[in-house]
Each structure stands twice: as structure tokens, then as C-alpha cells.
């Protein structure tokens, strides 16, 4: 029983690290913008030094491109999924910053409803290196 529980716990932890994805939808207006705040913290794996971001446009057809823009203090980054509706996400990008709140904005390049999957992970090293650490997200604006 202990062995089974240990495996289940390990799987849960692994899933927790891999499950930092947020699906969402942007409305038809060209200016539709979703705004999130991601909080990085030390969950026992070590203090955070960066946030990794990636976005995947999950609407096929002639939908606009979807991008993600991240900011912490004067540090910023941006990544756009170059193809709508395929299985490949945008290039992975990162913002350096220690424990605290990162602003994350999801946008698109024109009019038309669009859906997406946002991936976000806090890491203990600069530039998205090190190991995964405490990561939570809240929705601030959903358009």
C-alpha cells in the first residue's frame, strides 16, 4: 500500500509540474485581451528566478495569430505562435524575476475568435533554467 501511495504521490507531483497550462478563448474583437498574473514562489524546490512562457493557438483555419507577452519590473518578453491550429506551440520564452507576481497578457493579431493554451512554469534558474518551483495563476481579465 505504501509503495502504491508513493507512486501515486510521485505521479501527482509530476502532473502538478506539467499541468501549468491555462486554456482560454479570445473574443472576436481585434482588441480582445486576456490578462493573467502568475505568482512564482519557493515550494521547497528552491527560490524562483524566472518564468517560462509558451502559447499555442488551438483554432484552425484563418484565425489570427496568438501571442503571449510577459513582464516583471523592467524585464519583458514576447512569443507568438506562427501557425494557427497546428500541434506546435510558439517558441518558449522567459522573463527573469524572483519570487512574486509576473504580468502575462495573451493577445491576437486581428479580428476573429481564437482559442489558446498557455503554458507557464516558474524555474529556479535564470533564463528558464534550473528546476521547476512554485507556480500559481489568477485570471485578471477575460475578453
Amino acid at each position: 500500500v505504501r509503495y502504491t501511495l508513493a507512486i501515486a504521490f510521485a505521479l501527482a507531483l509530476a502532473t502538478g509540474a506539467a499541468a501549468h497550462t491555462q486554456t482560454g478563448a479570445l473574443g472576436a474583437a481585434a482588441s480582445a485581451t486576456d490578462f493573467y498574473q502568475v505568482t512564482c514562489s519557493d515550494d521547497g524546490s528552491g527560490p524562483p528566478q524566472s518564468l517560462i512562457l509558451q502559447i499555442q493557438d488551438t483554432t484552425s483555419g484563418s484565425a489570427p495569430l496568438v501571442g503571449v507577452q510577459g513582464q516583471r519590473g523592467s524585464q519583458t518578453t514576447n512569443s507568438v505562435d506562427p501557425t494557427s491550429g497546428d500541434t506546435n506551440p510558439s517558441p518558449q520564452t522567459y522573463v527573469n524575476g524572483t519570487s512574486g507576481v509576473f504580468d502575462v497578457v495573451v493577445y491576437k493579431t486581428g479580428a476573429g475568435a481564437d482559442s489558446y493554451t498557455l503554458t507557464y512554469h516558474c524555474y529556479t534558474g535564470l533564463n528558464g533554467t534550473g528546476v521547476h518551483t512554485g507556480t500559481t495563476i489568477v485570471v485578471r481579465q477575460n475578453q
Partner: protein
Amino acid sequence: VDAALTRRRTAIFSLALLAVLGRAASADGATQTGILASDAAAVDYYQVTCSDNGSGAPASLAVQVQETSPAVAPLVSLQVQKAFAGTNTTDPADADTGASPLVALNGGAGAYDVFVDKSGAGLCGYALSVQCKTGTDGSGSDTGTAIAGITVSPPPIPALPGAGRWALAAALAALAACTARRRAS
């Protein structure tokens, strides 16, 4: 190959000149030109402060961006944030005379974060227009608008062709000789 290289250098030089002129002319606080670095993740970050300059209290910030690259380049977008609200707009066409749709964020007086970025790798010139307004959704009269660059890509330095290198060397040599004469006298 030489013609293509010359065109590329000319384009970079033109963008750099536009950026310098634009930054010099930004004292009115309503326009700003720049060049996003080649990296696909490049972002130029500005803060726009809206205040009452006597025309009335600000209610919104209206923004627009135009891509100014002379050749095909990634699309240029901008995002605006204040508190927990945001909006965005994208110039849909490269190298034309049209700008992105005008968008506005209702945030009253204070500092707005404005980010200019692009849809892929490659140098990209842009002209950013910002204007604080007394009405919501960009309506009403113009009011106090000030812009400051927080993190902005430095202008690219074009490689000089052979003749340019010789001209620069001659100018520097003349300057050194002139300085030496002044010190001697």
C-alpha cells in the same frame, strides 16, 4: 549579393535614422519611433503618464502603432495595461502607410504600461502614437500625455561599406591631428 547587402544596410541605416529622429521629436509626448531588435522575443516597454494639463482630467489612453520597416517583416503589435485591465492592437500590413486600429484603455490618470512587440524574428521599425483623452474609449479632448522608455531596443549600428570605413578613418585622423595642434599651441 552586393546589391542586396547595400539594400539591407540602407534599410538598417534608414530605420536607425528614423529612430533617432523620432526619439528626438518625442518631446510632445504623443509620438515615438523605434526599432525592435531582431530577436523574436524583443519588446520595447514604455510608460505613458496621463495627467490634467488644463484641458480636463484624463479618462482613457488612446494608442496606435504603425510598422515602418521598408520591407517585409513580422507584424508589429502593442499591448497596453493599467491595473488589471489591458487591450491590444496590431498593424495588419508591412511597409504600407496605414497604422493599426486605434484602441483605448479606460484607466483615468496615472501611468499606463505600453509594450511594442512583433510576431517573429527580424528587425522591425515602428511609430507609436499615444494620446491621453478626457473621455472614455478615446473620446473627448486631448489632455496631458508624457511618454518614457523603460526598456527600449538600442538603434542598430549598420556596417559601413569600404568607402565608408575609409571616410570614417580619414575623419577620425583629421580630428586627432586637429586636437594635437590645439594641445601644442
